[in-house]
């Protein structure tokens, strides 16, 4: 387990020096971004068992908060990232309070609905750029301004650090009291409550942490692409993709979302690159088929395959 992790870390550090082109580096950044989003989803959907299909709200909250603060108050994106995490956390509390009364599928459906409402609301929000979106001012390059123009290395390592922090946090949470409480809630909420687990409070903790981490990823996305609009940071398809990464990777495991992103993102890119130019939508068919195969033959996700091969411990 430790050796596998060390190899993974070394590979992550060395990757941009082996693959110098912008495209492989972009691919690696996408993998890490989805791994981060999947890990954040996993706190709520995996550990605590509350399947959210509205993660795009938090992603959008992070992207819009930091961008608007940069545009109107000239604040550093790093400050914006913290502010975005706070906004997303507050939204998460507001969403969690009524929605956690619902359980199972009903909670998932409620999050879809709220996500769609958020998308429509921002589309009609003049100050937030409406449907046209917001361009980030291209500023000086550097870690402080969170913009890197000539090379992607800056983005790469910033995101790698963010991902590492998220994975460590989720490993630590999983091992601690919160992890046990969440698992108890996931397995049987009434039973958990009867033995004194404050279910609502710990579900709220899960959604707030998940939202804050997702918002940080949103700020990263905005700084990376330098353009946001409701179609790119608030669509339902993003929420589903986030959930898919974690579920296919292995729900409730620390390393699962990373494995899921490592397989899914290159898969989606590869099918599109090889087949997408034909204009016959074959890529989506192949992509969907592969997802079906994984979920039929290995319901425990890619982490399940890895475990069977003895690559990771439980």
């Amino acid at each position, binding site marked *: 387990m430790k050796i596998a992790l060390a190899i993974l870390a070394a590979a992550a550090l060395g990757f941009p020096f082996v693959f110098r082109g*912008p*495209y492989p580096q972009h691919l690696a950044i996408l993998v890490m971004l989805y791994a981060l989003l999947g890990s954040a989803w996993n706190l709520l959907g995996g550990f605590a068992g509350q399947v959210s299909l509205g993660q795009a709200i938090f992603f959008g909250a992070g992207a819009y908060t930091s961008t608007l603060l940069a545009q109107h108050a000239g604040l550093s994106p790093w400050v914006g990232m913290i502010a975005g995490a706070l906004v997303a956390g507050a939204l998460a509390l507001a969403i969690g309070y009524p929605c956690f009364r619902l359980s199972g599928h009903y909670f998932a459906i409620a999050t879809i609905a709220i996500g769609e409402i958020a998308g429509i609301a921002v589309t009609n929000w003049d100050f937030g750029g409406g449907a046209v979106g917001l361009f980030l001012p291209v500023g000086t390059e550097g870690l402080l301004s969170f913009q890197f123009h000539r090379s992607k290395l800056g983005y790469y390592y910033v995101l790698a650090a963010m991902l590492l922090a998220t994975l460590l946090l989720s490993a630590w949470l999983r091992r601690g009291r919160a992890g046990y409480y969440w698992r108890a809630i996931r397995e049987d909420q009434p039973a958990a409550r009867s033995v004194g687990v404050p279910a609502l409070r710990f579900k709220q903790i899960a959604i707030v942490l998940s939202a804050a981490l997702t918002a940080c990823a949103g700020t990263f996305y905005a700084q990376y692409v330098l353009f946001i609009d409701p179609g790119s940071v608030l669509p339902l398809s993003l929420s589903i993709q986030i959930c898919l990464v974690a579920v296919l990777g292995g729900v409730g495991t620390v390393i699962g979302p990373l494995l899921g992103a490592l397989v899914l993102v290159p898969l989606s890119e590869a099918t599109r690159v090889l087949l997408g130019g034909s204009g016959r939508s074959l890529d989506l068919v192949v992509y969907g088929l592969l997802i079906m195969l994984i979920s039929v033959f290995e319901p425990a996700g890619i982490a399940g395959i890895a475990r069977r091969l003895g690559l990771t411990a439980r």
Partner: protein
Amino acid sequence: MSFRLALAIAVSAALGARAASPQEVVIGAVYPLSGGLAKVGNDIKSAIELAVDIVNDDIDLPLPLAKGKGLPHLGGAKLRVVFADHQGAPEKGLSEAERLVSQEKVAALMGSYNSNVTATASQAAERLQIPFLNADSTSPLLTTRGFRWFFRTTPTDDEFSENFFKFLDEMKKKGKAAKSVGLMYENTLFGTDVSKFEKKYAQQHGYEVVADVAYDSKATNLNSEIQRLKAAKPDVLLQASYTNDAILSTRTMKELDFRPQAILAMDAGHVASEFVPAVGKDADGIISREVWALELGEKKPVVKKVNDLFRKKTQATRGQAIDMDGTSARAFVGLLVLADAIDRAGSIEPEKIRAALEATDIAGDALIMPWRGVKFDPKTHQNTLGQGILVQIQEGKYRVVYPFDLAAAQIRWPLPAWGK
């Protein structure tokens, strides 16, 4: 073209032909080829492929690079286009643009229909310093970013709005003077944006806005809105509506006997295929803006010839003959503009192509568009010679009535009173 520039091109062409003249020039095209916009994306793809055929083969048409094979200043090198699918997602547009540049080694990029994808894909091109030609995104914001490598041939929503007022100015010269305008628009992004531009240009061109009526396009009753317009008595009504509300408003105008001298509509609902069948004769006389029309072929024979080739191409590659529309026509022209610049650059070096694009000067006659030509603004890189057309519904058909030199039918002004 200055003498020195001509000399430089001639010399580089001569050198290029002898030294490292590439066998083929590769262009990357990022478009929505799957998902909800697949039909549009594939029409664009067919149009670009047709344009490539016209450049590569010897075809007798009055278009740039049609005669002779390949790119003459690059030793007859052939064009090849690599297509990539962005599925309507800005982040995928970015990634495809980067892949085409780094893996496929394209000399220039084209794209991407959706304004938001064009925004990110062109950002990648800007960072990688590769020319990016946009033929079909109309969001005015795109050319306000101060990019060095971004060029746009199509007019923007802003210019389409100004078109109305240029048209009114010309009508004035013909003795049909309108002094006041009334605005009626649906109250989401489309309508409100249009109304902002229309107010700006009304002021610039000296027309008084006597009514400003926003409404909900899902409303089932527009009586009070039309009453307000009727009371304000505008000479001309500028309308931006979707389909159902365009139908409802036309019926309500008849019911309440509101008849301005002219109605100028911002395409959308007034050119939707349901509109004329739904209101029948009452649609006659309404004028709408358009990007392009097949009917332009009556004054520009090349439009018809290219459309015939397009029908043949789509029949052969996609199993059904498809007519060109405003989007495929613009993509077709976009590829030719890019090919023309690469040919004049005599090189596939990005900086030389960029300089050649800046020096682009194509006359309106060499285009299948209603434009006066292609010439980029030195700062924004927006085509300064683009313009839309106006079509008027006459006997249930959309006829091109403006610009007057391209008109296929006489304009009818003013609108006849109801029931006549």
